[in-house]
């Protein structure tokens, strides 16, 4: 008997150790990923006041560098001036020439404009430093000369563009690795692993009093769970069918595809959980319900915190579309609070029955 008891304790302790070590390992993985896996996004920003007097700019231009920390396929985005609210009256009286060169002085990307936002094609950039050159053309002659040197066809005549004055401009360059999948894939895998270890820890702590080898659910609970999964399955079918109809009818739900997939997962889970809770098939035998409910509430609050943060950061809706990163925590929080509400209703019904 003593031996059996010892074995049981060891088993629970081993589970807790595995869960804690697993969580610690995934956290370590995250720290290593953040510190040693270079980000696939590189930004450069500089604000300058350019004064144009009689066709001469002060400064005439400036050079800087952009450090790419990881080789990859990059798309460059450059912008300067108030390109979103283009107004000839307030625009600068010069044309900016932007050039990106590699360490050997080879021009990779070049663009010109008075006020603009431009995206490059994809470039394979190796890890290293790249030079950014900004040059200001302040007269038609200078611009024509530049076009001639670069063999550009200059058909347009920028009337009233070049003028004297002083303008403060923010020059912004953004490089993003278009194939940056590895880092996010590792991060998602680590997140899933962390979640699994967390669930293992919570379930182990919540069922500490149970004898080793004892069944988790009784036969009635298993039968009810079968019904719950059936309802969940049909709910998933209905949502998928609705999604299909919306898709064929061309009705835009303004949701990212991944959000729709999350809804297809979460709603059937909520339906199944509701049936299980109302039929006492949700918690395992001898499971500490209070502990489990509090754990769900804590996880729900954590998700709600991140959801509020994402909404405050403006990531919830981007370009009129609800994004996965902005909404996944909110959906998870709503789901968890819904489960807690159903548990409360069930507890009330049980109390009333007694």
């Amino acid at each position, binding site marked *: 008997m003593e031996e059996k008891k010892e074995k049981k304790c060891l088993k629970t302790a081993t589970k807790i150790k595995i869960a804690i070590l697993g969580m610690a390992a995934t956290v370590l993985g995250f720290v290593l990923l953040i510190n040693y896996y270079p980000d696939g996004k590189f930004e450069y920003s500089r604000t300058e006041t350019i004064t144009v007097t009689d066709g001469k700019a002060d400064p005439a231009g400036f050079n800087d560098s952009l450090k790419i920390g990881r080789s990859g396929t990059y798309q460059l985005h450059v912008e300067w001036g108030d390109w979103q609210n283009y107004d000839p009256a307030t625009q600068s009286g010069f044309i900016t020439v932007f050039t990106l060169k590699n360490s050997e002085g080879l021009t990779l990307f070049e663009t010109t404009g008075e006020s603009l936002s431009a995206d490059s094609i994809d470039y394979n950039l190796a890890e290293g430093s790249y030079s950014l050159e900004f040059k200001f053309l302040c007269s038609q002659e200078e611009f024509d000369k530049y076009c001639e040197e670069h063999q550009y066809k200059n058909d347009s005549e920028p009337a009233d563009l070049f003028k004297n004055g002083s303008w403060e401009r923010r020059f912004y360059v953004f490089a993003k690795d278009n194939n940056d999948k590895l880092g996010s894939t590792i991060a998602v895998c680590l997140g899933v692993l962390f979640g699994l270890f967390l669930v293992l820890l919570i379930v182990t702590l919540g069922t500490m009093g149970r004898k080793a080898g004892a069944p988790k659910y*009784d036969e009635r609970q298993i039968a009810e769970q079968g019904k719950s999964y059936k309802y969940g399955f049909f709910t998933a079918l209905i949502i998928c069918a609705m999604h299909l109809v919306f898709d064929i009818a061309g009705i835009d739900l303004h949701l990212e595809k991944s959000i729709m997939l999350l809804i297809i997962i979460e709603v059937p889970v909520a339906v199944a959980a509701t049936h299980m809770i109302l039929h006492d098939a949700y918690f395992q035998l001898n499971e500490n319900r209070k502990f489990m409910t509090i754990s769900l509430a804590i996880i729900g609050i954590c998700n709600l915190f991140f959801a509020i943060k994402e909404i405050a950061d403006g990531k919830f809706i981007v370009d009129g579309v609800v994004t996965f990163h902005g909404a996944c925590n909110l959906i998870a929080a709503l789901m968890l609070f819904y489960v807690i509400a159903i548990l409360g209703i069930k507890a009330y019904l049980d109390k009333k029955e007694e």
Partner: protein
Amino acid sequence: MKNLRLKAARASFDMSQQELADKVGVSRQTINAIEKGDYNPTINLCIAICKELNKTLDEIFWEE
């Protein structure tokens, strides 16, 4: 149909639903469902209950 014989047998041992449930390895709600007639147990659970209550299957589960 309510299983009043199970309830009576349990009461004769001065046993609560939870105590019987713990002895046969099911949840209290399962014993409650059997007594209320909401759930038909498997033969294995019937035998386990009968053994705990020192009754035969006929005495508790046979409908006349």
